[in-house]
């Protein structure tokens, strides 16, 4: 059962990753990346890392990819497919670096992963991967990274605002702020009611008798 899910999720992850680099339309590339990230979350779940799986979906698929979607919308949606930037040097460089990365991964897998094939795998402790266990680790072993994350988020916030300002997105205060006081509209300055009825006056002065259902209306009742 677990093997079936592993292969579904694994194939999904690979297909998503291939989709990201092969589709030309930026929106489809973003969607492929979302599919890839969801498959990764499923793999984490199979590894019993519940919290990491949930965080993967909430933070990556739910937040980071939202930013990507907005960026795609900001630079102009489906109208123009991505043009390949850079010359032949970039293409050669990309292939070389991809090959190097692949070799590195193979070394890592062959060097350590295959030896573990016949073993029982890492021992499983009760509560592994639950938020409680993660919280304990945050407060003991990974205390510094936990607090550093907060600091990094602060820097990121500053960075986002600075970038937006450079783009001319933020200038001065907003003149369209809500009026501090609600000033009642003077009579005869164009409310919908005045336009329709041709009469000028406060609603109370113009009040009409309430509409009541005629007696014996057969549609009535619950």
């Amino acid at each position, binding site marked *: *059962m*677990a093997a079936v*899910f592993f292969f579904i999720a694994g194939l999904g992850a690979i297909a998503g990753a291939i989709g990201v680099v092969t589709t030309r339309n930026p929106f489809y590339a973003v969607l492929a990346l979302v599919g890839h990230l969801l498959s990764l979350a499923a793999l984490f*779940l*199979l590894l*019993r890392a*519940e*919290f990491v799986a*949930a*965080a993967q979906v*909430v*933070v990556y698929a*739910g*937040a*980071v990819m*939202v*930013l990507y*979607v*907005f*960026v795609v*919308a*900001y*630079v*102009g*949606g*489906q*109208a*123009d497919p991505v043009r390949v930037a850079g010359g032949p040097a970039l293409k050669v460089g990309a292939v070389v670096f991809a090959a190097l990365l692949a070799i590195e991964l193979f070394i890592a897998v062959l060097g350590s992963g295959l030896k573990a094939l016949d073993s029982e795998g890492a021992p499983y402790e009760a509560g592994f991967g639950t*938020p*409680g266990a*993660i*919280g*304990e680790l*945050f*407060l003991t072993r990974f*205390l510094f990274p*936990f*607090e550093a*994350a*907060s*600091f990094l*988020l*602060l820097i*990121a*916030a*500053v960075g*986002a*605002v600075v970038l*937006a*300002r450079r*783009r*001319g*997105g*933020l200038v*001065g*205060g*907003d003149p*369209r702020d809500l009026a501090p006081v609600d000033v009642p509209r003077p009579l005869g300055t164009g409310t919908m009611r005045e336009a329709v009825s041709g009469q000028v006056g406060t609603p109370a002065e113009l009040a009409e008798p309430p509409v009541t259902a005629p007696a014996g209306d057969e549609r009535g009742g619950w």
Partner: protein
Amino acid sequence: MLRTYLPAIVFVGLGTLVGAIFTMMNSWFGPKRKRTPTTFKQDPYECGLPSEVQQGFRFGISFYLIAMLFILFDIEVVFLYPVAVQLRAFGTFALIETIVFIALLVVAFVYVWRRGALEWR
């Protein structure tokens, strides 16, 4: 792990089934037209005068900024949950760590607010 989540998988399967039925039911029960529909029918919805705005139009920087800030605070929330679970167990120590964590984000929040990034335009 899978066993705990088995009902969730069943739910997702059932949801997909219902969704697929809803999506396809017009093909089964709906009227079938042989002729291709007219251009006017195939057009996307339009109201009033035909407008110049095309579908690929650009969106304001506000969307981008809001999404950026959302990432920050979303990570904050996700980080806070595990620590919140352990708050009682670790007592004062966890409290201090939580306060430091939130305080740094409050600084970020105040900065963002003062810089006008929360004004929608």
